[in-house]
């Protein structure tokens, strides 16, 4: 019963979705202010979701029906699961199980994969281009992301458990304040931007080129599910980065402050850059970002 509660309500699906939607509102509001606009009221994202849930879900002719409708679920379920694991870990670091970091890394790829599956099953040429871009992007950012996590693991004396990483930081200070930790953190921030599918790495949804690309055929509640997945990711990925790199003090207020700081970084990157081309993004991730992460790993091994 407790497990079900923590998965569905707190800190799982419902809670993370609400936080994510509020974070999404902060993003929209700050973006609007940067662009000299007014921006929506705080409940706008909730209203959007409710409205989408009430709309008809159109399935394109010739699409693989089951896959088309199943993939948004897949993404949402895994995103909610990550939110649960992270939320429980933050509250009770000792309850985390061995190897949960690996589970989290795996589960965080699934929303991207669900987008790819859903897009490919929709039989739309624009969606298939979006899917192929998303696939290339995943290949691009996963390598430096995992490398930067390896740097963290080495820093925390080899524990692949979120709880032990947190405990290590509580005892010895945040990973962020070491050389290797700082470099890995920068690399991870770029990966976070790509995982969240924000400018400059939003080419899978590039509105002006391929009209929402991967999501073009989705409507109604299926689209709402993708939006909720995005919202939950907006909550979980910065939270994961806080846990991994900045976990020395996770009292509620400090946690919120750190989370908002990361959110602001995301929003600023988003608003001061144009969209890259997919080949440029791939080159960027496999070049400088991977190099940064490798240096971080080497420094972590030497002990910096």
């Amino acid at each position, binding site marked *: 019963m407790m497990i079900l509660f923590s998965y569905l309500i707190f800190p799982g699906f419902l809670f993370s979705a609400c936080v994510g939607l509020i974070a999404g509102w902060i993003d929209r509001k700050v973006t609007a202010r940067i*662009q000299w606009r007014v921006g929506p009221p705080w409940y706008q994202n909730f209203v959007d979701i409710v409205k989408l849930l009430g709309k008809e879900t159109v399935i394109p002719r010739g699409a693989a029906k089951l896959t088309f409708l199943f993939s948004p679920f897949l993404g949402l379920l895994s995103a909610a699961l990550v939110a649960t694991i992270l939320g429980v870990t933050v509250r009770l670091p000792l309850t985390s199980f061995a190897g949960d970091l690996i589970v989290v890394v795996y589960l965080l790829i699934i929303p991207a994969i669900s987008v790819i599956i859903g897009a490919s099953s929709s039989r739309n040429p*624009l969606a298939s*281009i979006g899917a192929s871009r998303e696939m290339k992007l995943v290949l691009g950012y996963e390598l430096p992301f995992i490398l930067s996590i390896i740097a963290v693991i080495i820093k925390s004396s080899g524990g692949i458990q979120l709880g032990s990483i947190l405990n290590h930081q509580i005892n010895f200070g945040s990973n962020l304040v070491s050389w290797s930790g700082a470099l890995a953190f920068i690399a991870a921030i770029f990966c976070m931007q790509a995982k969240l599918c924000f400018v400059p790495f939003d080419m899978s949804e590039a509105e*002006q080129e391929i009209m929402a690309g991967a999501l073009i055929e989705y409507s109604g509640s299926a689209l709402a599910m993708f939006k909720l997945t995005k919202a939950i990711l907006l909550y979980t990925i910065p939270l994961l980065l806080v846990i991994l790199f900045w976990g020395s003090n996770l009292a509620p207020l400090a946690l919120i402050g750190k989370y908002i700081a990361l959110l602001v970084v995301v929003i600023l990157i988003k608003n001061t850059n*144009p969209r890259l081309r997919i080949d440029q993004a791939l080159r960027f991730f496999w070049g400088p970002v991977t190099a940064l992460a490798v240096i971080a790993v080497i420094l972590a091994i030497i002990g910096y």
Partner: protein
Amino acid sequence: MSHKVVIPIGPYHPLQEEPEFFRLYVEGEKVVDIDIVIGYMHRGIEELSEHKHFDQVAFLVERICGICSSSHPYAFVLAAEDILGGEANIVPERALYIRTIIDELQRIHSHLLWLGLAGHFIGYNTVWMWAWKYREPVLDMFEMICGNRNHYGMSKIGGVRRDIRDEDIPILKKALDDLLPAVDMFRGAVMDDPVIKARLVGCGTLTKEQAIDWCTVGPTARASGINIDVRRDEPYGAYDRVDWNVIVEKNGDVFAKTTVRILELYESISIIRQCLNKMPKGEIDADIKDIPPGEGIGRVEAPRGECFHYVKSDGTNRPVRHKIRAPSYMNVASDKVAAVGGTISDAALTLAAVDPCYCCTERLIVLDKATDKKIMDGWDLIKLSQEKTAKLKKP
């Protein structure tokens, strides 16, 4: 791998604000061929204009395009004045300066509009919003001079309709001074940003030879190293009385097109300043009554390139023939070479980089393929549209 997929851009697509249709043939991300289909916005303006009298036509052609809404009436008025003996011979000096000021203000607002859209197309929405914010004071200047933000209604055969009041001149000068730092900012933000450079340099390159072959005009041609500008080559208005430069770039890519437009903003601001300083006092209208029989042409450098109007008069109060060639008609075609070979992302940008304006460009004629007989022209289309409207009005 030779697996061609057709990617449609249009007729309704967030990339372009007007209906048009580009069929991109792609292999993976690479564009191998492109079909350009226009004709969704045809309104039969030329035909309509032959049913209006000369004073009305200036207002009609103003509505060809909401962005170049000084260039089209100006070109038409020039064509009519060509029949009368040339603009310089009949139009009062002050009116020439006012025409030039309106024409250049229009260029500033059009280039800022394009800059914003270009930012939007590369996903840089901050540039979009900021460019349009700084475009607002330009529209305010228009409102001060002619009472309207977008359709100016200034051109009149033999002069202009409204004077610029002396008490407005300091306000206009101040607005121009305020605009300059904003243009500086865009120059810094767009031309020195490494990410924008990475995105725009080498994208959609149109070589000088291609630009000549495809008859491009305006900033599109000037970005490819062709040194043409109607304002200098065949001066009208007060352009030969002020100092300014034609901006030419060599590379022909989207970055060069952006550079040309940003640098032209400086020239426009300088032209307007000089005009405001030099403008003599006096009449603004030559009070032309009749247009004698004859033919005339008018060429104006619109923000997108050369805008050409041909008018034939038989001595009555309406043109017998009115032919319009808008710049986008030439520029859009050059996408056929510029966009092929790049990726879809680049193609989307390239299509937008000529600053296409479809409603200037549209023309339509329906032919029977077997007999080559005309079965529908502009007038039929208007009738069709009127019938449709009548049908819609019925409850």
